[in-house]
């Protein structure tokens, strides 16, 4: 190449690392402390064979397999449990991290016009993309190395050197694979939003595909790239083949991204922006309709995404709710109706676990919507609206309204999916009461989260992202609390911890009204702050 396409890659890599250093550090610290922290706790939790056997029974149920991945056949040590339980989960978190950095540093820089200024210098056309890819390589494998060393020091019984490095580098290559997916997607779409949506669509399809193959026939999981991390067989066969596969796929994807990047104009994507209407439809006339217009695609994607996720989970209810399959002895011991009841109970317990997943997923768009009252201000989108006779109450109220509706319909979509999917495969019909309990139980708790965001927007707009942190912590406590045997008080740190165990138990009306009232109060307090503060914050 006479005209080097990679000119200044080294400089840009150093610059990018320097620019992102704080964010890189925070992600790395969170991931590492999560991974190593759990590892060091595992010895005390699952130190003896009895405790291991107990947890294995739970983890081997199809419900847990669908969430955490397939357990190996013979589990002997606490290291086996750790690897089986944490691998898929850590892969998901690393996917979020890699999507965030890569899309932001490629398409994001391009969209904001920063890349244009960089490209005007003697900088190769592929230098920015290369720098981003090198950055994510360093990030993933840096974290992977510390994972391996951490496991080495965590002294978990049953680990070995080969397995520790396999797990560390396996997760690192999985993360890097997601970085390369994001790199390709960033070339396809001409804006950050649809690039992110597209990237998560790819992830969602892979996640659902691996879930189905894991529950039915886990050999097919080999066909799903996300499933390769499950095939590492850490501490058992210690198979390095998936690592090689993930790296090969990453290289192919990176080459595709390079090809696309060097064959397109700056600022454009393969999926071009279509022209729009010459005038507004009558449905676009006030803040509420504007917020709907701006977010309708993402709200609909969330709705149908969660609906499909629900249906997929529902479609494995027959496998989950079949105790006879797990233990044929039951058939002789229990009557048919007793078996049906026992089966239903298992399904209900599984639905209870899924509800926390749906609630958290529904809150991601819900909180982002409310945060727009700050972000839209920062980006200048709302300034002209403030000059029109639109009151702050109307702006605030419209956003809270659309956010509440979004969370509500997504929660509903998850339950509808479970209902449709479950009834399609189960011999006995799922009682509607289950879903009523779910919705009534979880809805007010999600409203508290929206209330917190509303309060932050009104009083501490610089800290609006904190609520996402709270949401992640709440999810972690609810999801892993039992497995990690966290103390009981931790559960009371989150609104979800106060719910009766729906749908196994009936929902608690007192909690319902109490939480709803709290949410309302938070929203009102938020408005008081929003009404009187500066809208543009320097």
């Amino acid at each position, binding site marked *: 190449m006479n005209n080097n396409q990679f000119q200044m890659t080294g400089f840009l890599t150093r610059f990018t690392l320097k620019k992102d250093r704080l964010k890189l550090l925070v992600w790395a610290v969170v991931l590492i402390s999560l991974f190593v922290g759990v590892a060091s706790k595992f010895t005390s939790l699952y130190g003896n064979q009895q405790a291991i056997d107990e947890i294995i029974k739970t983890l081997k149920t199809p419900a847990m397999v669908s969430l955490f991945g397939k357990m190996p056949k013979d589990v002997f040590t606490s290291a086996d449990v750790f690897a089986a339980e944490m691998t898929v989960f850590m892969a998901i978190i690393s996917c979020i991290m890699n999507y965030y950095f890569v899309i932001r540093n490629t398409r994001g820089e391009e969209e904001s016009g920063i890349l244009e200024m960089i490209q005007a210098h003697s900088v190769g056309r592929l230098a920015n993309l290369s720098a981003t890819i090198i950055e994510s390589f360093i990030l993933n494998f840096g974290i992977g190395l510390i994972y391996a060393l951490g496991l080495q020091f965590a002294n978990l019984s049953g680990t070995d050197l080969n397995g520790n490095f396999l797990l560390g580098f396996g997760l690192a290559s999985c993360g890097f694979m997601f970085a390369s997916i994001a790199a390709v997607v960033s070339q396809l779409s*001409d*804006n950050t*939003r649809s690039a992110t949506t597209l990237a998560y669509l790819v992830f969602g399809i892979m996640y659902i595909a691996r879930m189905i193959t894991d529950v039915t026939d886990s050999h097919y999981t080999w066909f799903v790239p996300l499933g390769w991390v499950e095939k590492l067989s850490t501490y058992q066969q210690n198979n390095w083949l998936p690592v090689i596969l993930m790296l090969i796929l990453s290289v192919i994807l990176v080459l595709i991204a390079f090809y696309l990047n060097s064959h397109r104009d700056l600022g454009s994507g393969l999926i071009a*922006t*279509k*022209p*729009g*209407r*010459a*005038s*507004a*439809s009558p449905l*676009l*006339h*006030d*803040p509420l309709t*504007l917020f709907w*217009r*701006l977010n309708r695609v993402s709200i609909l994607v969330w709705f149908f995404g969660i609906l499909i996720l629900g249906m997929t989970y529902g479609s494995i209810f027959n496998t989950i709710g079949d105790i006879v399959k797990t233990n044929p002895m039951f058939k002789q011991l229990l009557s048919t109706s007793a078996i049906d009841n026992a089966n239903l109970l298992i399904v209900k317990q599984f639905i209870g676990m899924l509800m926390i997943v749906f609630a958290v997923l529904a809150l991601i768009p819900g909180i982002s919507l409310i945060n727009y009252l700050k972000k839209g201000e920062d*980006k*200048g*989108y709302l*300034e*002209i*609206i*403030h*000059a*029109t*006779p*639109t*009151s702050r109450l109307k702006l605030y109220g419209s956003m809270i309204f659309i956010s509440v509706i979004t969370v509500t319909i997504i929660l509903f979509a998850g339950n509808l999916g479970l209902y449709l999917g479950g009834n399609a495969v189960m011999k006995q019909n799922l009682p509607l009461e289950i879903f009523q309990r779910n919705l009534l139980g979880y809805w007010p708790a999600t409203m508290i989260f929206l209330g917190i965001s509303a309060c932050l927007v009104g009083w501490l707009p610089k800290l609006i992202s904190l609520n996402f942190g709270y949401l992640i912590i709440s999810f972690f406590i609810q999801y892993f609390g039992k497995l990690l045997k966290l103390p009981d008080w931790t559960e009371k740190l989150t609104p979800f911890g106060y719910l009766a165990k729906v749908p196994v138990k009936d929902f608690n009306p007192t909690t319902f009204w109490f939480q709803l009232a709290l949410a309302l109060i938070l929203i009102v307090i938020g408005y008081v702050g929003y009404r*009187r*503060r*500066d*809208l*543009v914050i*320097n």
Partner: protein
Amino acid sequence: MTTPTLHINHLQKNFGKFQALKDITFDIYPGEVFGFIGPNGAGKSTTIRTLLGILKASGGQATIFGKDVFKDAVAIHSRLAYVPGDVYLWPNLSGGEIIDLFLKLAHNKHTEKTDQLIKAFQLDPTKKARTYSKGNRQKVALIAAFSTEADFYIFDEPTSGLDPLNEEIFQQEVLKLKAAGKAVLLSSHILSEVEKMCDRIGIIRQGKIVETGTLQEMRHLTRTVVKVQTVEPTPEIAALVGVHNVEVNQNGSMTLAVDSEHLDSLMEYLSKKQILSLQATPPTLEDLFLRYYDSEVQTNEQ
């Protein structure tokens, strides 16, 4: 005198310890175009955002149509139109959709006038805002503002991205507003534009209004540049009160600056020396501006 549309009295705004606005005082009357000029970071946009109720004043008063700009923002805004300095539009909406949205939010409708403006500014309203240049984004906001029925129009550096043809259209539209008796606040860096259109001017520096008045009045406050050639020598000229920067040109003429209030005495002196040629240039707004700007540099250096 009629009641002012905009009345600002000792307005102050602090961001934490930083005093963005220290003392802003001026009025704008119906049928008047008020030019608001000052260097970058002097507080022009902060003043305008405070007037719009986006920021809450820390001290002083500001009223529009006699109402408090923060408390009665909604009522005020039903008779007000605004174009910000940096226009940011939702990338996935088209220009046409955004124009209509702004009109509807202001309780106005898309009229024939709107179509005329779209045509005059040569905007393609079907394009998504993502694909617009800075100038095109400004046109969207300008078209929405000019087709809004209002009594007070605020423009914050509205023409910085426009080409000369569109700038001309902008100026025509502003003059139409003026003729219709509307009040206009025009913040601008394009001094020729301000000079051409504004009835009165306010100069802001470091959060203070340092000067308000008509251009005519302001000229009195500054120096006239005089180029003169006389038959007799004029040795005492540099010592005259109010005369500055005397330079002798190659052809024997002199260039000097004189404070406007001392123009009289200079003329009296020169007339005794048999004037051959005389050329007096009144100060442009640019000179005025640079003078204030320079003195800022000086204060900064101190």
